[in-house]
């Protein structure tokens, strides 16, 4: 019989497979690596379509798809107390010790963190995105974050810029915020066995075609680059509201044969699109940590990116003193500067060796490393002293003149509801789930597991 799991972690977020994106990937890979380190990991998310109830994924990763319908942008409707019973049941059933919430605009995550704190569990929060301070949306979002993080044990951010942002937004002490970046599954993103010929240079763009991802920059940059370099062609993967603008641009400049629009690219096909190109172009206007760049670099593509958010920290830069060669050419988010950066990238393209770049990425990023670093954060969280309700309330009270009192009311009501639930269904009445360890999976690479999962999803 295997030794009992060291830590019992519940990952909570609105964003999980079958939805696709950076957060979903992060949770999945982190969970897989934590499972391999001998911890127990359970994921809680909302139901996707008819995928509701408990599912098992690769490596015995248990996923609770809570029957709670998404409201806007895949987040659940904020009911504040609606999720208390199910969160309590899951925490008890799985004998959880640490609750780990992901993503600042996941309402499910905020609610679960609040209930977990009320019940005295240790909570960790990972922030995956950047927010400004000026517009109405951000101001409200930041207040919610402040409430959610007021009494948190430890927080994680995906880049140093994101850490600065989170500290400013939530007023947390910087010592409580850890910087643990995302990683890339280098085994899944290998360069092509035969490198495409450099007679025709292919520039790949894979992003959702929305304003925040800089689709408008692409509209300006692509015709200019095509005019300067007759041997350049573009492959644009992704869909979104700005798709029409790109199509218009293509027609206006008669670039139908040089700009290929692929539409939405499923994650399992991203690698096959990436390996057809030489240069990866990222035009985001804001980015906490760009996984797409890592995936491209892992496939051996030279990246041209806008200098926004956490991007400059993510990869060794061109001309950096620390490493002799380069992986990313940065530009200001301005069409002229981006065209110059692409020119520069094309000029240094012959010196790029995809295999070498792939091997370097292997050393720079791995999910195992991320999991080990997250483990340290969990240990720190467990060492935090338990606080009484009164101590915790005083923290909420300091959140603001009106907001502080409101937050206190919310927490008191949550506590009372929890007490009521304990009367209706005592803790002892909740059945505990047995721990299932899938030992034969322990040797299997995580990436292969994901491929299997992909097959199931696409099939």
């Amino acid at each position, binding site marked *: 019989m295997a030794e009992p799991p060291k830590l019992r972690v519940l990952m909570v977020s609105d964003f999980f497979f079958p939805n696709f994106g950076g957060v979903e990937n992060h949770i999945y890979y982190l969970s897989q690596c934590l499972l391999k380190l001998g911890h127990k990991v359970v994921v809680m998310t909302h139901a996707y379509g008819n995928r509701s109830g408990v599912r098992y994924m690769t490596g015995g990763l248990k996923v609770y798809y809570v029957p709670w319908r998404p409201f806007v942008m895949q987040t659940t409707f904020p009911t504040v107390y609606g999720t208390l019973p199910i969160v309590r049941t899951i925490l008890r059933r799985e004998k959880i010790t640490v609750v780990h919430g992901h993503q600042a605009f996941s309402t499910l995550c905020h609610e679960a963190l609040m209930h977990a704190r009320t019940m005295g569990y240790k909570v960790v929060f990972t922030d995956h995105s950047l*927010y*400004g301070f000026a517009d109405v949306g951000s101001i409200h979002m930041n207040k919610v974050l402040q409430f959610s993080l007021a009494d948190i044990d430890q927080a994680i951010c995906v880049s140093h*810029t994101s850490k600065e942002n989170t500290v400013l937004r939530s007023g947390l002490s910087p010592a*409580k915020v850890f910087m643990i970046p995302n990683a890339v599954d280098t085994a899944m993103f290998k360069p092509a066995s035969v490198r495409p010929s450099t007679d025709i240079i292919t520039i790949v763009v894979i992003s959702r075609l929305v304003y925040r991802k800089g689709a408008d920059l692409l509209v300006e940059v692509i015709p200019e680059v095509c005019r300067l370099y007759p041997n350049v062609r573009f492959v644009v993967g992704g869909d979104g509201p700005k798709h029409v603008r790109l199509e218009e641009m293509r027609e206006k400049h008669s670039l139908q044969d040089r700009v290929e629009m692929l539409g939405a690219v499923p994650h399992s096909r991203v690698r096959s699109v990436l390996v057809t190109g030489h240069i990866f172009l990222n035009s985001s206007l*804001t980015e906490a940590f760009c996984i797409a760049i890592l995936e491209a670099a892992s496939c051996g593509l030279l990246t041209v990116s806008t200098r926004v958010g956490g991007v400059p*920290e993510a990869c060794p830069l061109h001309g950096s003193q620390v490493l002799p060669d380069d992986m990313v050419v940065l530009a200001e988010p301005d069409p002229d500067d981006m065209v110059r950066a692409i020119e520069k990238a094309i000029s240094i393209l012959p010196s790029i060796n995809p295999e070498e770049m792939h091997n370097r990425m292997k050393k*720079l990023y791995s999910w195992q490393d991320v999991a080990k670093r997250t483990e340290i954060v969990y240990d720190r969280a467990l060492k935090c002293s338990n606080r009484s309700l009164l101590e915790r309330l005083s923290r909420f009270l300091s959140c603001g003149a009106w907001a502080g009192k409101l937050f206190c009311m919310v927490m008191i009501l949550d506590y009372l509801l929890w007490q009521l639930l304990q009367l209706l269904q005592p803790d002892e009445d909740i059945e505990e789930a047995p721990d299932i360890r899938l030992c034969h999976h322990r040797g299997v690479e995580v990436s292969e597991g994901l491929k299997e999962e992909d097959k199931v999803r696409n099939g």
Partner: protein
Amino acid sequence: MEKNLAGDSIPRPKWRKVAYGGMQIGYDDNYTDESFLEEMVMNANVVRRDLLKVMKDSVSISQYLCIVALVVLVWVHTLESSLDENSLLLLDLSLLASGFLILLLTEEKMLSLSLLLRYLLNISFFTTGLYILAPIYQTLTRSISSDSIWAVTVSLLLLHLFLHDYSGSTIRAPGALKTPNLISCISVNASIVASVFVASRLPSRLHVFAVMLFSLQVFLFAPLVTYCIKKFNFGLHLLFSFALMGLTLYSIYALHRLFFLVFLLLVLLVNVVCPYWLIRMQEYKFEINGPWDEAKLCFDITD
């Protein structure tokens, strides 16, 4: 870990602000460097406002308040039958003529004869249409009680004032580039519905026609005229505004003492108290910018 390294003779490597390459040797993940928040910029784009300037700008608001108050006064006098239809029509005509004159005088380039003819044709179409529709307006809300009509009219006017575009004009001069936004269109429509409701309580068709024409002229074109005056000469704009304020205050005084007091307080609030308040609140302004901000595009997006 840090202690061990500090004891070693080898100095620990310098911390770098990078995310790659795993945990940096000698530094925990929650290490906070001195460079933390170095790139934060505070209050970079704050505009220091000056009280006199804000007060001058607020005159536009009180001017429009006066215009709406004058319209309401005309409505009240018509409903009380102290203003007959002939003087109303005369008022319409003189307003139309003076409005045209102001537009002509403040315009940089002279209007051509053909454009003038086109305007006259449009106006005649408009008035004819309104004249034909007047009987419908008159009986439009017969089945609704007067109390509801007054209540709805007041709320619509408040909505109109709340959403009104005080900085420009919803009705643009021909050839203007920017199209009005949704909010100001809602505002204009609210005022028109309010005028229809009031007109439906009048005794004769001619009354309805005259009041509707008057209200539409003011609500649609007064912002354009005042905007043109303001653009032409700011001193003239102030003069015009103060003249309007005087006229309004006098007319309200003649009607009702309490309303006069309320309106006077309102004008003072808009022109003196609110600007002072805004300036006082400036010191609480706290703006944070940094590398986490969304980049702004330096070119216009035309969808």
